[in-house]
């Protein structure tokens, strides 16, 4: 299991770096405050995430052959750079959406680069997946992520649920725990600093400005969440239902905001959204935990792991009975007294199989 101190240190590092970078970006002053605030959110989350991941030591290879390296050093900088361009060029609407969509389409190929899921890679000589499957993976993920970013951007000109970054940070953390429980330890751990960075920047922006825009931070966080789900599912064993529920969880506040009554105060809608999301995330993590425990402790829940395991008392009784009877027969046939036989130095009674009595357990 992961070292809790190391995990907490990484999470604290990510939160500190993210907050620090965000606050530094606010320094230039009020004239360009909006662009710098947007930029600070993106750079803060990206920088804090990479710092936290580095603190965890999840970059063993040090080059881009690892999925986490590609996430930290290509995907996160790419979406951060895109958000900076959007922030400083003051573009909105379709140009901004198109820029984010281009990044979204590139995320999956970058993360799956060099794997068996893409043609012409190191899978030579093995049965790889068909080109149609590759196209379905890349197209499906690209479309889904682009749509997610579009939905986030679509709320730009109306009051965005203030709890959206909070929910996104919690979802990223839950995605990490679920990925960890699904058999990909470092991939799951890497999500925790990212979630901490999102939450820290969100907290800092709330303290700094009552109605700050979270668009760039949300984009970086959503791309990071998608990346964790991609590597968890295709490199680890994160199941499709878990991945889909986790992806959907981050949109619960938007759904609640759209469907909820306007008569309900915003803070109540926010509380309901967070409650629903936490309930959904808890269910997903609990299910992953149950699967994990069932796999590692089959004898506790699912009965005996092998047909012989549950028969141990029965086999013990049979072997004792059989060998005792054999011993009695042997002693009766050869000697008048067991005591006389036991004094013989070369005596070692054997069962029919040629093994000492009781040795039936040695090969179990």
């Amino acid at each position: 299991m992961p070292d809790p101190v190391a995990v907490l240190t990484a999470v604290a590092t990510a939160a500190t770096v993210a907050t620090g970078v965000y606050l530094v970006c606010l320094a230039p002053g009020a004239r360009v405050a909006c662009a710098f605030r947007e930029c600070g959110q993106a750079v803060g989350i990206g920088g804090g995430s990479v710092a936290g991941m580095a603190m965890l030591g999840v970059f063993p290879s040090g080059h881009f052959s690892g999925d986490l390296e590609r996430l930290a050093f290509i995907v996160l900088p790419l979406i951060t750079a895109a958000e900076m361009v959007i922030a400083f060029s003051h573009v909105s609407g379709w140009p901004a959406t198109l820029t984010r969509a281009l990044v979204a389409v590139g995320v999956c190929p970058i993360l799956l680069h060099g794997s068996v899921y893409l043609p012409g890679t190191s899978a030579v000589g093995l049965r790889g997946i068909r080109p149609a499957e590759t196209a379905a993976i890349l197209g499906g993920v690209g479309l889904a992520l682009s749509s997610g970013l579009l939905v986030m951007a679509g709320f730009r000109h109306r009051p965005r649920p203030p709890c959206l970054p909070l929910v996104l940070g919690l979802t990223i953390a839950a995605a990490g725990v679920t990925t960890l429980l699904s058999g990909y330890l470092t991939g799951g751990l890497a999500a925790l600093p990212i979630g901490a960075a999102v939450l820290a920047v969100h907290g800092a922006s709330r303290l700094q400005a009552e109605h700050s825009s979270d668009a760039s931070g949300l984009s970086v966080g959503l791309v990071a969440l998608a990346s964790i789900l991609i590597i968890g599912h295709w490199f680890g064993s994160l199941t499709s239902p878990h991945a889909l529920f986790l992806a959907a969880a981050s949109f619960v506040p938007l759904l609640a905001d759209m469907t909820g009554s306007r008569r309900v105060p915003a803070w109540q809608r926010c509380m309901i959204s967070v409650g629903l999301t936490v309930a959904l995330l808890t269910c997903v993590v609990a299910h992953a935990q149950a699967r994990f425990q069932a796999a590692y402790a089959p004898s506790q829940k699912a009965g005996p792991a092998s047909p012989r395991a549950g028969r141990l008392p029965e086999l013990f009784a049979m072997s004792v009975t059989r060998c005792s009877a054999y011993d009695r027969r042997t002693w009766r046939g050869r000697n008048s007294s067991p005591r006389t036989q036991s004094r013989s130095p070369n005596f070692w009674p054997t069962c029919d199989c040629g093994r000492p009595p009781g040795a039936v357990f040695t090969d179990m």
Partner: protein
Amino acid sequence: MRGTITSACFFVLIASMAAKGDDYTIDPAHSGVSFRISHLGLSWTQGRFNTLEGAFRVDDDPAKCAFVLNIPAESVDTGNAKRDEHLRSPDFFNSKQFPLITFKSTAVKAVQDGYEITGDLTLHGVTKTVVFAMQGGAKAEFPAGVQRTGYSANFVLKRSEFGMNTMPGPVGDEVYASISFEGTKR
């Protein structure tokens, strides 16, 4: 002159045929790789790879011997499905990124009862030169008409040298591997 050249060519051809070794294809049904690794310093977790493929050439001149072995990382089997999933993940073998574990000999030297093999082992995307002794070389015919020979070797690897650093405490660094294979003559 023409006859001399023809004779020389024939001699070279015969010599090259005589020098040609025997080529074998590994028989997966009679080949396997097993390993054991320490768990918490308490016990040995044992596992195997269910698939081993490759080919080798055996020659009277050891320098002309060659061995190429391919092991799909996906075929790792420790008898626990969840643990196998974890072993296939990027925490260990990263079988989706590095699907094949390969060994290719670069030098073969004759020793008592077999060969000393030097070769490049590629595991987890990292290639390292390894040296180990391989016993065997006896030949048999089974079934009738199928010539076969086989070799076995035991060696120790440090997984950290191949970039597999996850869980260094609970899971031991040294992996005790054992490989045994038969080849059928082509």
